[in-house]
């Protein structure tokens, strides 16, 4: 077998659905049915998971560090809110897509700013864009409602049939379906040749350019796609909570998002989903201990994670699930690998 064939073979092996993944989604669905009293918080987790998935696409696969991902979330949220408030597009699914596309436009426009420069410039530019949008939203308070936010959003039934109920049941299943569909798309993309080229860029942009990968165009594409995902997450936020206020753009939202992704691990798509669950649970526990000051503990978690080392931590966390997976599916099973080792693999 020649070298390219082998690469293709391994890539295909890697892209195959394995046992653990089915288990994950079945467990997610089971949770949705098992805890009818917890619809609201589960919806929150699903939204956060989708948002984290979006950041994972650019951070985990393309290596773009963003401090202002809330910009796209906010644009999606306000777009969905305005569409529904003024009755422009009443049907939630179409409104969701349109809101996502609005964020996509912004993502495409700003991607040209982001691909320039090194890490530090990117951090500043992304942060600046989010702050800029926040300032804009505050300035045009006649459109956005200013600090009060958009009020009086009435959501129409989804596809004209499933109305949003006050317990959030429809909202949860709606969000879960959206998350699953977008996850499928993301999974398809990162395992495609396009996704592999992104990994090459992340590992070594210079080498990637030398073997003929159009680095800038690929980065623009993935950044735009991530903006779409974040916009959808923001639109889901507005649609399921009937609320959009200035804090959708807040720096804390972007920072929390990073924590979510860091807890779950980057670069294997499930990181954002697992991270969202863990993050929300941590938040619950912390606010049970000290209601007002849970941010302190979140900060502590961040500091400890960084000091211990992200890769080392993930090896500990993934030890048990991987043990189970290898027990059931044999030693060659595709186990979840922490970021550092995943990089090592793609080097080899």
């Amino acid at each position, binding site marked *: 077998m020649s070298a390219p064939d082998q690469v293709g073979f391994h890539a295909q092996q890697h892209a195959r659905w394995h046992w653990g993944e089915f288990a994950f989604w079945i467990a997610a669905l089971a949770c949705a049915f098992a805890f009818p009293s917890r619809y609201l918080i589960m919806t929150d987790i699903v939204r956060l998971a989708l948002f984290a998935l979006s950041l994972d696409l650019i*951070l985990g696969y393309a290596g773009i*560090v963003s*401090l202002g991902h809330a910009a796209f979330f906010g644009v999606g949220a306000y777009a969905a809110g305005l569409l529904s408030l003024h009755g422009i597009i009443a049907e939630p699914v179409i409104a969701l897509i349109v809101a996502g596309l609005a964020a996509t436009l912004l993502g495409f426009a700003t991607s040209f*700013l982001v691909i*320039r*420069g*090194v*890490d*530090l*410039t990117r*951090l*500043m*530019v992304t*942060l*600046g*864009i989010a*702050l*800029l949008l926040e*300032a*804009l939203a*505050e*300035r045009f308070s006649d459109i956005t409602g200013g600090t009060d936010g958009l009020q009086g959003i009435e959501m129409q039934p989804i596809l004209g049939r499933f109305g949003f109920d006050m317990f959030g049941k429809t909202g949860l299943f709606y969000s879960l379906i959206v998350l699953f569909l977008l996850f499928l798309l993301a999974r398809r993309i990162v395992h495609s040749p396009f996704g592999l080229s992104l990994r090459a860029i992340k590992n070594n942009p210079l080498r990637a350019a030398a073997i003929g990968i159009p680095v800038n165009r690929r980065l623009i594409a993935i950044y735009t796609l991530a903006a779409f995902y974040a916009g959808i997450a923001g639109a889901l936020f507005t649609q399921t909570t009937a609320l959009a206020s200035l804090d959708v753009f807040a*720096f*804390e939202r972007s*920072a929390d998002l*990073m*924590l979510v992704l*860091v807890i779950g691990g980057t670069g294997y798509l499930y990181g954002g989903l697992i991270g969202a669950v863990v993050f929300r649970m941590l938040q619950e526990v912390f606010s049970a201990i*000290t209601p*007002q*000051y*849970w*941010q*302190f503990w*979140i*900060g*502590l*978690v*961040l*500091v400890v*994670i*960084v*000091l211990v080392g*992200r890769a080392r931590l993930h090896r500990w966390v993934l030890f048990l699930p991987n043990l189970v997976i290898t027990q059931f599916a044999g030693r060659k099973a595709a186990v979840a690998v922490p970021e550092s080792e995943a990089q090592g693999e793609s080097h080899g």
Partner: protein
Amino acid sequence: MTSVLTNLFDGVAYGMLLFVLACGLAVTLGLMNFVNLAHGAFAMAGGYVCAVLVNQYGWPFFAGLPLAFVASAAIGAVLERLLYRHLYTRSHLDQVLFSVGLVFMSVAAVDYIMGSSRIFINLPHALEGQFDVFGVGIGRYRLMIVVICGLLTAGLQLVLARTRFGSRLRAAVDDPRAASGLGINVPQVFAFTFAFGCGLAGLGGALSAEILGLDPYFPLKFMIYFLIVVTVGGASSITGPFLASLLLGIADVAGKYYVPKLGPFVIYTVMIVILLWRPNGLFGRTSAR
């Protein structure tokens, strides 16, 4: 006309304050290449130390200022030895996460200890009000800030350019390996510089309570300003950040006065444009190290 000059003076005072607050960050971020988003937390610590000493223990304001410096420098030194030094060689992502974590902790901790409302420091009567110079209103407090910050800036420039420590620091930053080969204790130099920068931030925090407002969200609110000063100013010398903070201060004051509706919009736009035009800052070296 006179209001223009008064605004200009206020802008200069504001800019100088920003410089004292941010110049520690110019060293850590600009020279040592460490993304320390928690710099504002040290400023806040200094401000609160000064406020407690002056308001609760009745210290004179001018005795509180040096104590603010000392307290922040001490916190900075301890954290540098315990935590920061492990992260110098890590990726920017790790540094961002770590310092954001510190910011969250400091915000919640100060909120817990001191309450969430804005606090003021009791000023001596001599610093209140303003006086006229040829019809231009000059605030006494702002004049004091300009004097203190001007002296500090001149002192810093002298220390960096003329003293043995200054040349050691420049050598350690330019090439840590060669510098340690020449017998310079690089970690010590970095630790000292870091602590000194934190101390300056603490002093700035104490001075800024009157102008910027001091509450637990200080580190988050002004983080972007410090970052702008450093990234726009570049880090090759102390003059770059100094000019950048003056520009920022004047632009911000003028913007708030003449076009209050636009708010911080102009500043963010200008920052993004400058970063795209010259990624290493307006006054930075042309190539990154």
